[in-house]
Structure formats: C-alpha cells, structure tokens
C-alpha cells in the first residue's frame, strides 16, 4: 500500500525552502552592492537604451566638474583586454570597458557622463590612421588634431618619460573657439612603431590624471612559434 504524503512535512519543507532561497538571494544582493563600481558595455552595433530621468539618480547632485579622489583612496590596476597595457587608478573612479573593441578603449563612467564619450585611454594604430607617421610618433602627435573637426591647431608638444620608462608626448590642442581645455598624452609602444597609447584627461583632476599617466606600463606577451599542420 502506498504511503500517504505528509502534507504538514511538505508544507514545512516548502516554507523553509522558500525562506532559505529568499535569504540566499538577499545575501547575494547585499554582496553585489559591496562590489566595486565597474561598467561593461557591449561592443559593436548594440543598443544601450535611452536615458530616463533616473539616469543621474545615483550620482551626487552636486557632482564637481572634475573627478577627484581622497588621498587615502585605494589604487587598483586596470589591465588592457586586447593589448598588454596596464595602469593604476583610484578605486572610486568607475571605468567602463567595451568588449571586442579594436581600440581596447577605457571610458570613465562618472557623474552623468556616457563613458563612450569620455574615453580615458585607447590604443591608436598609426599604420591604419596615417602610415606616413609610422616610426615618427612625434609627427603623428603634432598632426593628430587634423582628424577632428572640433580642433584647429596644436599649441605644444612636450617629450617626457613616465615612471615606468615609457617614452611619451604631452600635447595641448586648440579647439575652434581658441581654448585649450584638455591635455592629451601619447606613449610610444616599445618595439612597435605602429601603435601609440593615447590618454586624455577629460574630467579628471590633474593630480589624479598625472598619477595615472605615470603608472602606464606595457607588458608584451612571450612570443610563441608559428603553427604547422
């Protein structure tokens, strides 16, 4: 004879199980709230929606014009997804990467700014942009502004070497109304005259930006033999 199911036990099990699941979901949610701020956007032809009024609700209503960080803020390392570059940045600065991005760009997702329009670092391929400047990064930097309709000239280009030994150029470009609001930094990539690492200060406090610039490294991978069948 088949045993009758014990409804009390089943009910108790269901209630207990549901309660435990709720606890685990709550625990997971709490844990995720404590994770660092990091935004990842899809690459290629995608859709990121239209921004609603809620777009800025998570940001301080009195967000300053420039991002700054407390002196005791922890600095963490960002590693390039495609290219072997890395740099340090304050943990409270929210960065966004773009999967499958050929430029391996990093955007700043801070305030109510769209990271796609606020790029901190990207890799530029001189061979693809203008092959005449391959091997002559300084000339590339001096003429970089010509590709942008919002810029009309270059004010200065200064050579420098950062704390990691990378050779680079600090450039100030003049926009159409004669202002020079930004500092652009270009690093030569060791043993690869086709590439430059480009950084722009954007909304970053100069102290923060300079420290980021000083931390930029290039860590080339170990070469492996070519395949045969």
């Amino acid at each position, binding site marked *: 004879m088949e045993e009758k199911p014990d409804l009390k036990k089943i009910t108790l*099990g269901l209630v207990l*199980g549901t309660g*435990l*699941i709720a606890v*685990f*979901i709550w*625990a*997971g*949610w709490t*844990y*995720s*709230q404590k*994770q*660092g*701020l*990091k*935004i*990842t*956007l*899809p*690459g*290629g*032809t*995608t*859709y*990121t*929606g*239209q*921004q*609603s009024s*809620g*777009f800025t*609700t*998570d*940001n301080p209503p009195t967000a300053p014009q420039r991002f700054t960080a407390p002196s005791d803020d922890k600095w963490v390392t960002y*590693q390039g*997804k495609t290219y072997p570059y890395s740099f340090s940045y304050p943990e409270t600065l*929210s960065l*966004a*990467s773009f*999967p*499958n991005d050929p430029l391996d760009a990093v955007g700043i*997702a801070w305030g*109510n700014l*769209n990271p796609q329009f606020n790029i901190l670092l990207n890799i530029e391929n001189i061979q693809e942009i203008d092959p005449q400047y391959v091997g002559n990064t300084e000339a590339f930097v001096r003429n970089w502004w010509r590709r942008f309709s919002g810029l009309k000239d270059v004010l200065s280009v200064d050579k420098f070497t950062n704390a990691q030994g990378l050779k680079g150029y600090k450039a100030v470009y003049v926009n159409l109304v004669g202002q020079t609001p930004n500092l652009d930094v270009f690093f030569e990539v060791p043993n690869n005259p086709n590439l430059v690492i480009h950084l722009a200060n954007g909304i970053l406090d100069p102290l923060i930006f300079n420290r980021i610039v000083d931390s930029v490294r290039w860590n080339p991978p170990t070469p*492996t*033999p*070519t*395949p*045969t*069948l």
Partner: protein
Amino acid sequence: MVIMVIILFLGLVLRLLLVPQPGFEADIAYWKSWSLAASDKGIVWLTQNTNYNYPAGFALVLWLTAKIYRLFADPANYQQYWQTSNYLFLLLSKLPSIICDLGIAWGIYYLLRQPQLLGLPKNSSRLALPLAAAFVFHPVVFYDGAWWGQVDSVGVAFVLLVLIFLARSQPTLATIFIISGFMLKLQVIVFLPLFFLYLWRNFSFKTMAKNLAVAALTYLAWSFPFVLKNSLERTFYLIYQNADWFPLLSLRAYNLWWLVAGGKGMEISDKILTLGVTSAKTMGLILFSSFYLLAVGLVLTREGPKNLLLAFILAGLAFFLFPTQSHERYIFPAFCFLFLLLPDYWEKPAKRRWFLLLFFLLSVSVFAGLNSSMLVNYPENGIKVFGFLTSKNWEMAFSLFNLVFFFLFLWEVGKNLTLFWKLATLGILVTGVLLTNLEYLVKKEISLTKLKPISATQDYGTLQVNRNLNSMFGPKSWSFLSVNYFFYRQGFGTHANSQIVFDLDKKFRRLETDFGVDTAASQRASVVFEIYGDGKLLFRSQKMTKGDLPRHADVSLEGVKTLLLAVNDAGDGITEDHANWLEPRIYR
C-alpha cells in the same frame, strides 16, 4: 525522492551563491543590450538593428528578462543597469541555465530510475541518485551557467527531454522540444538530422514526414513576432549568419585546431591552407562530416534511443573537436550526456575504472578550458588558483587528450557499426579532400577566387567575388566585372584603399592577373595596384584611371607564404575608386 529534492535544493543554493559573479562580462553585457532593445523596440527590431546572433527564440527570453527587470528596477538607469555587479540582471539572466541545470539532473535521475526506457542496464536505478548529484555539483556544470552566465544547459535540457519523449514513444512532443531547443540555442542544430533519421528508423517514414510538419509549425510558433511583421526571412538569417561569425581557427576550444595553432587559435584565420588548397575551415567541415556519418550509422544500424544517445555524444564531440570557429563551451552537451553512459560500465570493475579515469580527465580538461577562457578575458572573474592550467603545455595536453578521448569513444561505439559505415566515413574524408583539390592537382593552376582571403579590408563597401563593387547592394545590382567594357567572369571587385590577403603557404610559384578601374566608376576614379609577397613589393602599376584599358601583371611567387593584393587611392582620395582584380590565377 526526498533525497533527490534535497539534492536539487542544495544545487539551487550553490547556484544562487554564484549569481553575484559578474561572469563572462561580454556575454552578460550583450544580454543586457539585447534584452533592453527587445523590450524597448521589439524583437524584430533587435535582430535587424544590432549584432544579435542567437536564434529567434532566445530573443523572446531576453525580452521577458527585460520586462521582469522593469518590474523591480529601471533599465534606463545607466549607472545601475550596466554595472557588472547588477545583481537583479545577473539573477534573471542566469535563472534559465540554473533551472535547466536542475532539470537535467532530474532527467538523469528519471532515466536511470527507469533504465528500460533508454535500454540501460537493469540495475542502473541504484546509480540514479549518485549520478544526478554528481551532475548537480559538477564544477563544469555550475561554472558554465551560474558562474559564467551562459545558457548551454538550456539546449541540453531540451535535448534530454527529447530523449525522454522518444523513449516513451511520443515523437510529436519530442519534435516540439528539439525545435524549441534549437530556437533557443543554435548548437542544437547538430542533433536535428540525427533526430529525424531516428524517427524514420524507429517509427516510419510517415512519422518522420508528419513530424517535419510539426517541426515547421513549432518553428513558426517561436517566430510569431517575425511572422506578424512579415519578416520571417530574418529568422533564417539569424541561423546562417553564424557560419563565418568568428573566422578563426579555434575560439579557445581545446580541439584539433588549438593543437595545430600551438595555442594561438584566436590569432590565426581559418582560411589558411592545410592540405593542398583546402582551407582549415573546409578541412574542419570535411572531418566533422566524416565523423557525423558514423553518428548517422549508429542511428540507422540499430533501433532504440540508446543508439541515438550515443550518436548525440559522437556528433557533439565531433562538433567541438573538428570544425574551426568552435567555442570552448561547445563540448558541454556531449559532456552532459556522458553521465548517462556510466551504468554501462559500472558492473565490470576494469571498464568502470577506465571510464571513471577518462571521465575525470575530461572533466578537468573541460573545466580548465572554461576557466582559462575566463581568466584570459576577465582575470578577476576566473578562479585564479587554477591559473597555471592556462600555460601552453597544459593547453596542448588538454587538446590532445580531448582528441584521444574522442577516438577512444569512437573505438567503443564503432563496435556497433558495420564495415560499410567505416568505409563510407573514410570515403567522405578522402573524397572531400580530393574534390577541393581537384583543379590544383589536375591543372596545376587555379583561380585565386577559389581561395578565401584570410583578411580583406577596404575603405568603402565590401569585397565582391566574381562581381563588381556595386553588386554589394543586392541581387538586383549584380553585375559582371569589367574595365572599359572588357568583361571578365572571375576576379575581385573592390574599392581603394583595399588590402586582400591570402595564405599561399609557399605552394605557388607564379601569379598572373589583369586589373583596372571598373566601368561603373566615374571620371574621378584613380588608383594604383600593388602586389606584395610576405610584405615585399613585387609589383606596382602606374596610376590607373577611368577609361584605361585593363593591364596585366605576371609576378613570381617563389617562396611566398602570404600574398597581399593592394589598391591605393593614388594620393588623391578614394572618391569613386572602384577597382578590379581580373582573372587572377596562381600556378604551382
């Protein structure tokens, strides 16, 4: 039964604990983008305006995900929605695979409890609980779904239901589920021919024909948003667009091509030449087709769902190991189905030991493949303690082992096959290689258009083969290649600045080609044609303009591995620079 419920519950708890893992961030970011697009703009719009490359049915799941998300949070809140630690989205997007993981465990339990259904040994039922538990808590299983965020288990769950319904002689339900699985996870396509052949062999031709109609109706049901918008053709496009989505040897799948590429499968085009002029992609398809024929033989030789299960495993393993462009996760379905084979080997201690050892090694290999892929792409999201397994030596060892496992499995199931099937497999392999090399072997010269470029870039439009550039606008615009009204049947229609690169692998000694500005270009066209071998300039034309007659080039290719056909704008901009390479022929 109570113990099984407890196992499932614990499996659920484990997975809920893993939900906050950001997983493979690109996949999750695409789920977010596509679900938002489906919800905001509609499913058809999503497939027409984004890089969505999943089957039509999965778009419905994403649409539902965004709709549920909206009940609790605003997806337009940019900072919240796109955070990698967005718990609500992670939970909703991982829920299908979590449910399917548990569903598969239940399916294993169900089939082993009633071993007569699949034709498993009678005492399999005592292994039902241990194997279901082993599945639930297997690292490969919970890593793929709850950790990574992928939905491979959704396809597997549907195929397992197919096996259950076939074993219960319910082919119509089986058809509905296999098509549903296919509409949610494209990789299920591998099992479709075997399924319909099984219906023919085990039921009747009429049953197969009837169920093909059921399949068509199921397909239409999943495609109803497209039917309503008169865009059904888009659902077909979503299937075939994947044929060359990632044109690389291996997408971190530890398989034949990862081994061949020495661990650089993500960096090498699958259009490189292998035997003769057979590209790696074609060779992969020939190998896969050959082994697939053995799976067909398994289904047609003997009746019973057990043979279909073996055929699914064989086809699944071959699909992972031999075609190029295979992902690390493509082994997942075959891996899951292997759980059902353990009872066959349990009673004989020697065989049991071998099976367990091989299955353990395969588990390590598959897990290492998943985790290494995660570590390479998102170092902070993988399990770092196993980082040493990403070394080249380990990767080569895993690739080799996976191939060995396949051939051992083939040896085992091959006992059920007659000589005919083995010879037929060999025949397809040899015929495939010979046919793709026929012109090369007989005539010692071939048209360069028979080779697929390993890369092709141009500053306007897309490369056209045996048609002029304007043909890119669709069949109504198709037109022959021509220069000043001299027409050609073969060649490349391109646009400055253009670079078309071929792998010749030092197999040819000479190239002959005509070239010129296309008749359809305007008077402003002006280009220079260049031919490079391994980066060295072999030929440069004079400046060519509209109205010039076609010119001819004849260059030596001795020792050339990589051939580049380049067209530049002659220094005056690319306006109207429609350029043609005409009747390009390469000689052995």
